């Protein structure tokens, strides 16, 4: 459990932190097993609702909430749920939390709910969530499952924000809807269209893979 205090490089720092098993469950989702950049899961919201940073953040945080809540409930019920109906039960639990977050977003901001549109309900079928339920929460304690959900959720939010930042800057010349380039900037509209999602994802995947290659040398 002891956390070594040697921090020679950034990677070393993460590795030393990761030597504590509970911290590791949290850290792995942020970086080593990042749902978007490493596991390449949950591509539907990653490509669809990252056309602005606000949308990306809201989507990421909504997904993170559902992940933490469903991981917690599924883990606490893991000895009670029969194997034959586990997937159906997981979906039921996930759908419940998605409905909760849907109402909560509506009660927070009408315009945010409008811009996320159908994608809030589609969190139900985000494979990151079902994947963590099946691969982790159904086999581990509540505490670890909550940490795993939080790590994966924040990792997902981080990835979505990366895409959202780049797409909004290039495609709309703004960040959080504040113009940053002035009126002379010609928007690169393709970046906020669906195709731009693929381009941006490719750019980030390339960047993170290069980073990983360098740090493993």
């Amino acid at each position: 459990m002891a956390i070594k205090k040697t921090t020679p490089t950034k990677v070393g720092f993460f590795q030393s932190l990761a030597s504590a098993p509970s911290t590791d469950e949290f850290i792995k989702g942020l970086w080593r097993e990042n749902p978007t950049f490493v596991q390449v899961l949950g591509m539907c919201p990653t490509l669809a609702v990252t056309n602005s940073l606000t949308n990306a953040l809201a989507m990421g945080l909504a997904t993170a909430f559902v992940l933490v809540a469903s991981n917690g409930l599924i883990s606490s019920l893991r000895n009670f749920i029969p194997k034959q109906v586990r997937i159906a039960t997981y979906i039921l639990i996930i759908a419940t939390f998605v409905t909760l977050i849907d109402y909560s977003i509506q009660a927070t901001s009408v315009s945010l709910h409008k811009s996320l549109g159908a994608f809030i309900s589609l969190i139900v079928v985000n494979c990151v969530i079902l994947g963590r339920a099946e691969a982790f929460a159904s086999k581990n304690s509540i505490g670890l499952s909550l940490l795993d959900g939080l790590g994966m959720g924040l990792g997902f939010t981080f990835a979505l924000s990366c895409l959202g930042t780049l797409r909004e800057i290039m495609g709309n010349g703004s960040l959080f809807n504040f113009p940053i380039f002035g009126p002379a900037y010609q928007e690169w509209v393709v970046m906020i269209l669906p195709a731009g999602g693929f381009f941006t994802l490719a750019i980030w995947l390339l960047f993170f893979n290069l980073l990983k290659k360098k740090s493993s040398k």
Partner: protein
Amino acid sequence: MSDQNISKDKGSDVFQLFKSMVGIGLICAALIAFVFQTTQPRIKKLKAAALEEAVFQVIPGMVQKKTYLLDEKGNIQIAKEGVTAGELIYAGYDNDGKLLGLAIQASGMGFADVIKVIYGYRPTTQKVIGFKVLDSKETPGLGDKIEKDEHFLTNFKALDVALAADGKTLQNEIKAVKQGQKKHEWEINGITGATISSRAIGAIFKESTQKWMPTIVVHSNIFSNDTTLTHGH
């Protein structure tokens, strides 16, 4: 004997499945019901506030609002307090209670989904004086220019919707034309790159004005009646 055992096992198994599914289903239903109950008042309030804001935007200068309802017989009357269903229009007045305009909601099919809009109409000049998109899923960067494009929005500062002499139809139908080709006051300058969406707005206006303008002109007296006014912003 073994057969019996298996069927017995299956029986208890099925019961176990049933128990867990129903149990979890009940927990989930209770959670949803609870959150629905707690968020619903606020959601309603936010939606009403958004609509209120839109009404004040499409009738420039208004400070007071009254709500009217179009009933099934085609008559317009003052809507009772708290009515949200049915075909509602909103009348905007200045400080002295003078009618500045009417806000009318309309909708129609766009490129991606139904577009909902609200527009302001001034009976004295028979012109559209303001416009706002309430709800649209048009493509970001292209179709959603109908919400932001300044040139497009100037179409709705003085759009002619005057009635013909018989009072039953519009003198000139609202029509969307290509960008830069607007020649008459009843034409809407389209947007290059958002052709379908801007044409859809044209179609929504054409349909809505044909329906509302004759009715409003017939009932125009009711809007200037002295009744209690709701003070806004």
